[in-house]
C-alpha cells in the first residue's frame, strides 16, 4: 500500500455541520432501570458521573439555533435535507417535558433547509403515559427488549425486579391502540449476553410483535480493568450464538441483515466488489486516488453530533466524554474548529505508520476514539489487516457466497446502505 494521508482543517468540520444528518441529545442521565450491562453502569468507565441531571432547555435551544444559522447561511432554501433529532438517556422519557419543549421550539423555527424527524431509544417503562404524544409527533422508537422474561433478566429496576412484564405490556398497548404507527415507527433492539440467545430473542420478538429485532453484543471498549472477567462472563458473540442454535440456515434467512455473516457479506460486497456506489457523482472518482485521513474515524460531525446532559459536544454517543469537541452552556455554543482539527489530526496520525501498510485502509471503519489506549504515545490498532488476513477475509466471504449464491442478487437489488 502507498496511501497518502491528509490532515483535516477547520473548513471541513464546518462543512460537516452544514451537512449534519443527526443531532442526538442526552436529555437526562437518570434512568428508571439499572441494567447490569449499561454503558453508563458499573462495567464501564470514561463517562461523566451520573447525577440524575436533566439537560436544560436553553442548552438544547442554543445548539439548534447555532446549527440553524449555519444551515441558513450555507444551504439554499429550496434544498431540504433529512435531519434526525434523537433523544437519548438515561431513559429519555423521564425528561419528557424537555422533549416536548424542544419539539415545540424546533417547530417554531420553521427550519426549511432540513426536514426534521425525531428518534428515541427507550426502555419502554414510561411508554404507556406518553403514547399519544409520541404518536402525534411520529417519533421513531427503538425499544430495548432482550427477548422473553428470562432473556431480559439483566434489565432490572432499582429494586432488582425484571422489567420485562411492564415493558411488554406497554408495547402491546401501543401496538393495539396505534397499529399503523407501531408498524411504521417502532423497532426493537436486543443486547446479547449470557442470559439470552439470538434464536430465543428473535423468536420472542417476532412471535410477540411480528417484528425483527436488531441484535448486538455488549460494547467491548471502555471496560473497567477490574470488571473485565465479569464482562467476559456476560459477553456472547452474535455469530457464535447463531451457531449454537443448531439452526443456522433458517435463522440467517430470517434475520437476513441482522445475521452477522450476511451483514459482513453485505459490507464486503459494498466495500470490495467495486459494483456498489453511493451516488452518481461517486462514479467519477477512483477511490484509490482519493486522499483520506488515517484510520476509519469519521471526521468530526460527519455523521452526527451528540450533546451530553452536561453540555459536552461529542461526535457520537459512543465516544468517551473526555474527547469532547465543544461545549454548550445556557447562553452560547463554543466550538473551536481549529482546535478540533488539531486534536483529531493528532490522534489519527498516531496510527499513520500502520495505516500505510494496512490492506484495509481504504475501507477501514476503526474509530480512534474507540481505542482504549489512544492517549498513549504509540497505541495499537486492533483493526489492522495484513495481506494474509485480508486474503482470508476475502476467501471467507466468497466461500459463504458460494454456499448462498442467491444472496448476491438479493444484496445488490434490495439492500440500501446509508452512509
Amino acid at each position, binding site marked *: 500500500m502507498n496511501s497518502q494521508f491528509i490532515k483535516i482543517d477547520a473548513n471541513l468540520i464546518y462543512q460537516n455541520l452544514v451537512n449534519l444528518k443527526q443531532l442526538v441529545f442526552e436529555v437526562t442521565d437518570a434512568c428508571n432501570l439499572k441494567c447490569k450491562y449499561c454503558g453508563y453502569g458499573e462495567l464501564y468507565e470514561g463517562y461523566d458521573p451520573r447525577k440524575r441531571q436533566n439537560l436544560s432547555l436553553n442548552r438544547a435551544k442554543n445548539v439548534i439555533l447555532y446549527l440553524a444559522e449555519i444551515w441558513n447561511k450555507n444551504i439554499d432554501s429550496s*434544498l431540504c435535507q433529512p435531519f434526525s433529532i434523537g433523544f437519548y438517556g438515561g431513559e429519555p422519557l423521564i425528561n419528557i417535558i424537555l422533549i416536548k419543549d424542544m419539539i415545540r421550539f424546533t417547530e417554531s423555527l420553521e427550519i426549511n433547509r432540513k426536514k426534521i424527524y425525531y428518534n428515541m431509544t427507550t426502555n419502554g417503562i414510561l411508554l404507556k403515559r406518553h403514547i399519544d404524544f409520541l404518536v402525534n409527533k411520529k417519533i421513531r422508537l427503538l425499544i430495548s427488549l432482550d427477548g422473553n422474561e428470562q432473556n431480559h433478566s439483566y434489565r432490572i429496576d432499582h429494586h432488582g425486579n425484571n422489567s420485562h412484564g411492564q415493558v411488554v405490556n406497554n408495547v402491546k398497548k401501543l401496538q393495539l391502540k396505534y397499529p399503523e404507527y407501531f408498524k411504521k415507527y417502532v423497532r426493537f433492539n436486543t443486547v446479547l449476553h449470557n442470559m439470552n440467545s439470538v434464536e430465543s430473542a428473535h423468536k420472542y420478538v417476532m412471535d410477540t410483535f411480528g417484528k425483527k429485532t436488531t441484535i448486538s453484543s455488549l460494547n467491548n471498549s471502555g471496560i473497567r480493568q477490574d470488571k473485565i472477567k465479569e464482562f467476559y462472563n456476560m459477553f456472547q458473540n452474535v455469530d457464535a450464538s447463531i451457531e449454537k442454535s443448531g439452526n443456522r440456515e433458517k435463522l440467517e434467512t430470517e434475520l437476513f441483515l441482522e445475521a452477522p455473516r450476511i451483514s459482513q457479506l453485505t459490507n464486503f460486497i459494498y466495500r470490495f466488489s467495486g459494483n456498489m456506489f453511493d451516488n452518481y457523482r461517486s462514479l467519477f472518482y477512483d477511490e484509490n486516488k482519493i486522499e483520506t485521513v488515517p484510520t476509519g474515524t469519521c471526521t468530526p460531525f460527519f455523521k452526527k453530533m451528540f450533546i451530553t446532559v452536561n453540555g459536552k459536544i461529542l461526535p457520537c454517543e459512543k465516544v468517551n466524554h473526555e474527547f469532547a469537541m465543544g461545549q454548550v452552556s445556557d447562553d452560547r455554543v463554543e466550538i473551536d474548529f481549529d482546535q478540533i482539527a488539531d486534536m483529531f489530526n493528532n490522534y489519527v496520525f498516531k496510527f499513520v505508520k500502520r495505516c500505510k501498510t494496512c490492506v484495509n485502509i481504504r475501507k477501514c471503519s476503526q474509530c480512534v476514539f474507540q481505542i482504549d489506549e489512544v492517549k498513549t504515545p504509540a497505541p495499537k490498532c486492533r483493526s489492522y489487516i495484513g495481506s494474509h488476513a485480508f486474503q482470508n477475509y476475502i476467501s471467507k466471504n466468497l466461500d459463504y457466497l458460494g454456499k448462498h*449464491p442467491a444472496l448476491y442478487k438479493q444484496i445488490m437489488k434490495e439492500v440500501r446502505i446509508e452512509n
Partner: protein
Amino acid sequence: MKISIALTMKRYWLVLYPDTFLWLKNSLGIIYNSKNYKHFTFICRDKLKKLCKTLIDLNSLYSVELTEKLLCQQNIKEWVKKIIQIDAGEIIEQDKQEKKLVSYFPTLTIQNNIDHIQWKDGLNMGGEIIKNLEELIFYINGSSNGSKHLYKQLHYPLQTALSVNFELVDTFIKKCKNAQLNKITFIGDLCRYHDLDKLQKWVHSNNYFLHFILLPDDIVPNIEKFKWLFREKTDISIIANDYTSLPNQFDLFRENSDMIKWLFPVTSVVQFEWIDSFIRERTVKEYEIVPVFDGSNLPFFEANVYTSQEDFNEISLSRREVFINMTLNVNHFGKLTILPDKKVYASVNENFLGNIKATIYDILFKEMTKGHSWLKVRNKRPCNKCVYQWLCPSPGNYEKVIGKPNLCHINQSREDISATIVNS
C-alpha cells in the same frame, strides 16, 4: 456404456473475473477485460449462448459448469481458450477444486439512484440532489464576433444582444453554494459586458476555480485592461476564430502564454494541417483542436471523428468507466449552462429546465427525472443492438447537431458480424 462415460467424464468450473464484462446482442457476444483492456467478440449461438446466459444470471456468481463433452465442441473450446488468453477468467477441473468457483457479475448498484431521489422528493427531503452539481457555465452576454450556432457544438460565444445582469449570476451561484462546484465558466465579450465591474469584484472575492472562454477580437484591443484575469485558480481559453489574424493575435498573448489554452476549431483536413504546423512552429503548449460541423463537411467527420472498428482495439476503459457509460453522460452530467436569455440548460441542445430565477432544486430534480442530458446513455437504437454499446463514449453534441443517433461506422447488421469477428 453411456453410464460409464458419464461417470468418468471430467467436469470443470469456468469462472469469469469481476472486472470482465460479458455482453450479448442477438447472435454476437463480447468479452471485455476492464483490467487489461483486452477483448474479443464471438458468435454466440446454441450451447454457447446457453452457457453465456447462465453466466450473466446473477445467481450463478459468474461461474458455470462445463463438461468434457462440451469442451470438445470447437467453438466452445476456442471461446474458453480466448477467455484464458485475455485473462478474463479461469477454468478448473472440479476434482481439483471441491468448492464452486465464484466471482461477481459486474452489475452496478447506485445507492442514491433515481428511484431514491424520487422517493426523497415525495418526502420533501431531496436536497442532497445538489451534490450532483459540479460546474456552472454562464454565457454572460453575446459577442459581435460570436456565432448563432456554434455554441451547440462547443463552448463558443453567442451572437446576441442579450446579457445577464451579474446580480442574477451571483444569486444563482449562491443557490449552489452547498454543491461541490469544481468550476465556474464565463463565456462572452467581457469588454462589452455591462456588469464587468461587478464581475471583476466578484472574481476577487471568491475562491472558486474559474474558467473564461473568450474570442481574441473581444479581448485584444483591451488586453491591458484584463490583467486581472490572469490569476491563480483561473483558466483562460482563447478560441482562434480567424486563422488569418491568428499569428498576430498569438503574439499579443505571448506574455501570458503559460496561462492560456488555445482552442482551434477545424472543419477540414486542410485546416487541420495548417493548425498542426502552426502549433509546431509556434510551440503552442496548451491547446485543443476541436472538429466543427459546418453543415457540409460530413465526410471530414466520417473520416476523422466517426468511431471505427480499429478504435475498439485502442479501448482502455476501467470497470468504473464502463459503469459511467452505462449510467451517465460524461459530456453533460453535473453541468448547468445559463444562456444570455437567462434560461438554464443541462445541455444547450435540449429544452431549457427553467429560468435563472427558478429554484435550484426544481432545476436539478427536473433534469434528473425528466431531462434528456445528464443521464443520456447509448440505450436506444441502433446502439442498443451493438455489442460495443457500453464501450462507446457517451452521446455528445455532434450527434444532435449532425442529426444522427451516433457517429459510428459499425453497423452490426447480420452481414457485418463476420467482419467484426475477423477484425477482433
